[in-house]
């Protein structure tokens, strides 16, 4: 599905009247940044599960999702930076949206580093969950940054309420790319969490009986 979205977007969607072919990076950039935020939100829900109901799986899912979140945030930042050259004439701008996304990337690294620095994994799980819950404050800031401040970054072109300022010939491949990347990341998440659960539970009887 991701390949379909990208092929449609990169080869068959029409050129943009102002940006020419350079706009085509949206088929990578937009899905990446959407999932950079969604993955963090998912991690925050898992962290609450772990802290409130002591569900171990919550912590395992955070630990598995964090590297994927970091990777996709990095791709979002990098693709945005590459897009910045033809559109803004600069690789980087200390604009509210870009800076808050960079902060999100640092948050992902912080979560991974925090977990990695404790040898007692149960302790690491709890501390990591606390940090994830507190860090969720950054998500609405990223989302609303383009509305709250006058930024170089454009406001959202698609809204959940249904409105879109993108022509359907570009919108459909974009939506397919978003859904496709979503499925790809879910698959990656399942694979990553499966191997992490095996690592953490390797001494448990259910592993030796079933695997």
């Amino acid at each position, binding site marked *: 599905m991701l390949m379909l979205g990208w092929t449609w977007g990169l080869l068959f969607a029409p050129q943009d009247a102002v940006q020419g072919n350079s706009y085509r990076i949206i088929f990578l950039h937009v899905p990446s940044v959407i999932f950079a935020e969604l993955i963090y939100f998912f991690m925050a829900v898992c962290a609450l599960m772990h802290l409130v109901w002591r569900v171990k799986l919550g912590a395992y899912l955070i630990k598995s999702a964090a590297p994927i979140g970091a990777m996709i945030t990095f791709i979002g930042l990098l693709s945005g930076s590459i897009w910045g050259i033809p559109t803004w004439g600069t690789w980087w701008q200390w604009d509210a949206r870009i800076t808050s996304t960079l902060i999100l990337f*640092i948050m992902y690294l912080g979560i991974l*580093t925090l977990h990695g620095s404790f040898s007692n994994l149960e302790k690491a799980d709890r501390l990591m969950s*606390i940090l994830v819950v507190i860090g969720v404050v950054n998500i609405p800031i990223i989302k609303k940054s383009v509305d709250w401040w006058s930024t170089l970054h454009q406001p959202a072109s698609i809204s959940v309420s249904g409105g879109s300022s993108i022509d359907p010939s570009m919108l459909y491949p974009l939506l397919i790319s978003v859904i496709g990347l979503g499925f790809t990341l879910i698959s990656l998440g399942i694979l990553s969490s499966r191997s992490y659960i095996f690592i953490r539970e390797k001494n448990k009887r259910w592993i030796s009986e079933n695997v």
Partner: protein
Amino acid sequence: MLRLVKAESFKLSKKLKSWLGPLLIMVLVLIAFPLSIDISQFDLDKFYFSIIIVSLLMTSFVATEGMFEEDFEDGSLEQEFLIEKDFYKLVLSKIFVYVCLIGIPIAFIGALFSFANGVAIGSFAKVFLLLSLSNLLLFNLFAFGNALSINKGAMLGVLSSLPLALPVIILLGTAVRSIQFGDGFAAIITLMIGVGLVMSAIMPLIISAALKTHID
């Protein structure tokens, strides 16, 4: 509570490097910056506030760096847990003492330097209030970072708590603009007081949970 405040004040006053270090760093940065770049006073006045904000961020981080580490290493935290069964009061009094003994003097230094760099004399009180409130927020956040990393080094503390300081910096930037252009300051300061009160009530709970995890 008063016992804890007294004990924490005594402990901090004995640790010279913990309270004097951040104050000296603040003064050094604020003096060194104008010397290190060759620009006119007019240009310097325009962005000197940014230097104050960055120095504030840096010094509040340095000030809170070892907030719980020593207590954790020497067993005071465990002892306190056995007496109180919770760290809420300890954290609250620690942050209170740090803000009073380090945060407010830092805010005073920052306000003095801003006054010397283009801010009108009538705005001194505004700047001082703004910087003091910012310190309250930053000390709460960095105390959280310190409680998470405890004895694992400053880098981890920065990684965990600096991103959370972003909203404070944004608020500060807006407040600075309102001081420079002379409108909307009351609304921002009210918002900061509100956030400060909420944070001072909630953060010790979260920090307490993090400290308990270390003791467990």
